[in-house]
């Protein structure tokens, strides 16, 4: 299952619809939904927010994996950005030192089972897997 999405947060509801369809079609355990939704949203929002030099749509591909789901997001005509190198967040910091933002990629790296990054011909592709625990 694959679909291209405009560079707008308004597309999030359509991404959720796509994910829902995959889970229903392939009878993927519903317990994985929230992590898949979270990781997909955070990576999509990151591309929309920071890859502002392009107006091309973002491709999202989803397919069942052996014990869960594999999701890829591809952004076209952009600079390299490997989410695995995202700056760590000090989640033990006191309230006065915490600031909104920065948590998205941290949560993705914490919650998915594996994540892979490819950059070729100005195409930035992130693939993650969420498995049944």
């Amino acid at each position: 299952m694959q679909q291209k999405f405009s560079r707008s947060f308004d597309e999030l509801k359509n991404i959720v619809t796509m994910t829902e369809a995959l889970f229903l079609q392939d009878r993927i355990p519903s317990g994985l939904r929230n992590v898949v939704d979270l990781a997909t949203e955070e990576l999509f929002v990151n591309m929309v927010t920071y890859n502002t030099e392009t107006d091309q749509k973002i491709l999202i591909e989803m397919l069942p994996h052996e014990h869960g789901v594999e999701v890829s997001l591809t952004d076209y005509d952009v600079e390299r950005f490997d989410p695995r190198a995202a700056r760590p967040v000090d989640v033990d910091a006191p309230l006065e030192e915490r600031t909104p933002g920065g948590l998205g990629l941290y949560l993705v790296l914490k919650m998915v089972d594996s994540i892979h990054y490819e950059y070729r011909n100005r195409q930035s592709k992130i693939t993650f897997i969420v498995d049944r625990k």
Partner: protein
Amino acid sequence: MFEIEFGDSDSVVVEGRLDAAQAVKAQAFLDQVGGQCVLDLAKLEYVSSAGLGVLLKTHKRLMGSGSGIKLINVNHHIHDIFRYSGFDKLFEIVPASN
């Protein structure tokens, strides 16, 4: 779908999916809240980092005046997100009874 409104006993009821598309709506509502704020999350199905940012910003503002946010009826998944984010150390959290 996302809704935020005042409930009984001055609590604020949050329902649906608090994602990046809904964070502006949530922030606009919570910017009007003063004093101790109880957020009832019983019907909150999903929250992303954008929603966490709204909660953190509001909590810091209210803490500045000696109050803050209390999160009640927090389901298992949402609680996991709070725990991974370190929010369980920043907020008073009451899990859902089931």
